[in-house]
C-alpha cells in the first residue's frame, strides 16, 4: 500500500511531464504561400518530400466541418497521391512511385482544432535511368495550388547539395 501511495504522485506527474515535453518541442516556422520541397537522389532512389502549410493547398487549416470541406480534403488527398501529375519528371528517367506517405492534422479523423496546420507528403520513387533526370518541372503544381507563391527547394544530387527557389514563373529545378 505504501508503495502504491508513493507511486501515485509519480503516476499523476507523468502526463504532466510529457505535456511539458510537448511544449518544448520546437515551433517550426509557418509561412503561408511558401512551401518546402526536399529532393534527394541516391542511386536509383529519388526521395521527394513536400512540406506546406495546409492553407496553400486547400485554403483552410481547420479540420473539415461540413460535407463540402470534407470533399475538398478528399480531393486534395487524391491529388497528392498522384505526385507524378504534379511534378513532371523526364520520361526518359522512367521513374515510378514506390512508396508514399501523407501526414497532416487535416487528414486525421478526429482532432482538436487549433492553430496552424502543415501537410507533409513524402514520396519514394525508383528511377530506372537516374542519369536522365536533368530537371523537374513544377508548373502543374503551381497551376493546381495557386496559393503557393514560392517553393524553397533543397536538392541533394550526384553533384552535391544545392538550394533553389521555385516560383510560378520559374518552375523548373535543374539537377
Amino acid at each position, binding site marked *: 500500500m505504501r508503495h502504491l501511495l508513493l507511486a501515485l504522485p509519480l503516476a499523476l506527474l507523468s502526463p504532466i511531464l510529457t505535456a511539458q515535453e510537448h511544449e518544448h518541442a*520546437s515551433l517550426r516556422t509557418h509561412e503561408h504561400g511558401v512551401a518546402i520541397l526536399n529532393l534527394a537522389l541516391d542511386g536509383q532512389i529519388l526521395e521527394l518530400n513536400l512540406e506546406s502549410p495546409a492553407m496553400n493547398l486547400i485554403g483552410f487549416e481547420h479540420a473539415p466541418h461540413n460535407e463540402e470541406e470534407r470533399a475538398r480534403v478528399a480531393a486534395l488527398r487524391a491529388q497528392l497521391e498522384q505526385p507524378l501529375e504534379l511534378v513532371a519528371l523526364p520520361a526518359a528517367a522512367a521513374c515510378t512511385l514506390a512508396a508514399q506517405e501523407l501526414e497532416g492534422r487535416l487528414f486525421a479523423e478526429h482532432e482538436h482544432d487549433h492553430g496552424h496546420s502543415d501537410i507533409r507528403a513524402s514520396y519514394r520513387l525508383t528511377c530506372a535511368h537516374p542519369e536522365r533526370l536533368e530537371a523537374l518541372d513544377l508548373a502543374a503544381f503551381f497551376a493546381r495550388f495557386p496559393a503557393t507563391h514560392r517553393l524553397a527547394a*533543397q536538392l541533394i544530387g550526384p553533384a552535391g*547539395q544545392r*538550394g533553389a527557389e521555385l516560383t510560378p514563373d520559374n518552375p523548373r529545378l535543374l539537377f
Partner: protein
Amino acid sequence: MYLFRLALGSLANRRFTALLTVLAIALSVCLLLAVERVRSEARASFASTISGTDLIVGARSGSLNLLLYSVFRIGNATNNIRWESFQHFAEHPRVKWAIPISLGDSHRGYRVMGTSPAYFAHYHYGRGQPLRFSAGRAFATDPFEVVLGAEVAEALGYQLGERIVLAHGVASVSLVQHDDKPFSVVGILARTGTPVDRTLHISLAGMEALHVDWHNGVPARGAGRISAEQARQMKLQPKAITAFLLGLHSKAATFALQREINEYRGEPLLAILPGVALQELWSLMGTAEQALFVVSLCVVLTGLIGMLTAILTSLNERRREMAILRSVGARPWHVASLLVLEAFALTLAGVLLGLALLYLAIAASQGYVQSRYGLYLPLALPGAHEWALLGTILCAALLLSALPAWRAYRQSLADGLTIRL
C-alpha cells in the same frame, strides 16, 4: 567569296589601323572571358570550401551564421551545444562520422579550433580532396600539440617543434594569454585555399586544458592554478562544443536526420545543409559579381565602338576606292556588304586573338593562382555560355557595321563617279 577577298585586301592596305582595332577587340574579349572564367571558378571554389559534409549542426540561430563561424571562422556562435548532444548524434545509426568543433581562442589574429583526429580523416574540400600534411603529423594524445594551417605557418614563420602561446578570445590584441600552457607545433597542413589555411588546430582535450583552472571568465591565481603537467594527468572531457559536422551513410537520409536534429528535445539545435547555405551566402555576394560582369561587357562595347569609329573615319578617305569599285561594275550593295565583311573580319580576328591571349594568360598564371588563392583555372575549351558570349559579340559587330555600310551605300549612290579631287 571574292567580296571577302576584296575586304581583306582593303584591310591589308590599312593594316596598322586594322591591327590596332583587332588588338583593342582582342583585349576586351580576353578581359570578358577571363572575368567569366574567374567568376565561375570562384563560385565553384567557394562552393567547395567544404565538401563531403552532409550536415553542419550548431546552436539554433541562422543558417548563414552557423555556416560563417563553423566553416569560414567569421563571427561567433550565439550559444554552445552540450557534449551529450554531440554524442547522441555521433552514435546515431545513420551517421558515418562526426567531427566536433570548439572555437573561441586565437593566436595572433588566427582562430584556434579544438577538434578531434576525425577532422583530418573526414574533412574534405574542393572536389572531395582530403586534408594533407606538408610536414609532421596530426595531434596525438598529448593535449598540448597544435597543427597549423599553411598560411599560419607561412605568415608567422613557424617550423615543426616551435612552442607557441595561445590567447584567450579572438581579438587580435588579447590581454589574457594562456602563457602557462604553451603548445608545440607537431604538424603543418598543405595549402588548401580555404579557411583551413588560416586556422590552428588543437585537440578538444587541449582546449579543455587551457580553461581547466578558469573560473568566472578569469584564470585562477596562486594555488588554484593548474600547471600543464597537472592538466596532463586530468581527465580532460569537454562539457560543451561550438558545432559539429556530420557525414552520413546514405545521402538520401540527410533530410530525415536534419528534421530529427531540428526537433531534438535535448536542446535547441540547428542542422543545415552546407551546400544550400553556401549557395544562399553566394547569392548575397552575387551583386558584386554581376557588377564585374557588366563592367567587362562595357569594355567589349568600347572595343566595338572603337572599331566602328575606325571604319567610319576611313570612309571619307576611301571614296576613291569605292568609286573605282563602282566603275568596274560593283553595285552599291556590293560596297555596303564589303564594309559589313570588313567589320566581321576585324571582330573575328579580335575574338580569336582574344581567345589566344586568354589561354596564354591562364597557362602562365595557373600555378600561381592555384597556390595563392586556391582557384583552379582549367585550360578547357570555352563552354556553351562562353560560346554564346562570343557569338553575341560577333552579332553586335555585324549590327554596328550596318551604320557605315548604310552610309557607304548612300554615298556611292550620290557620289557615283563624279568625285571632286
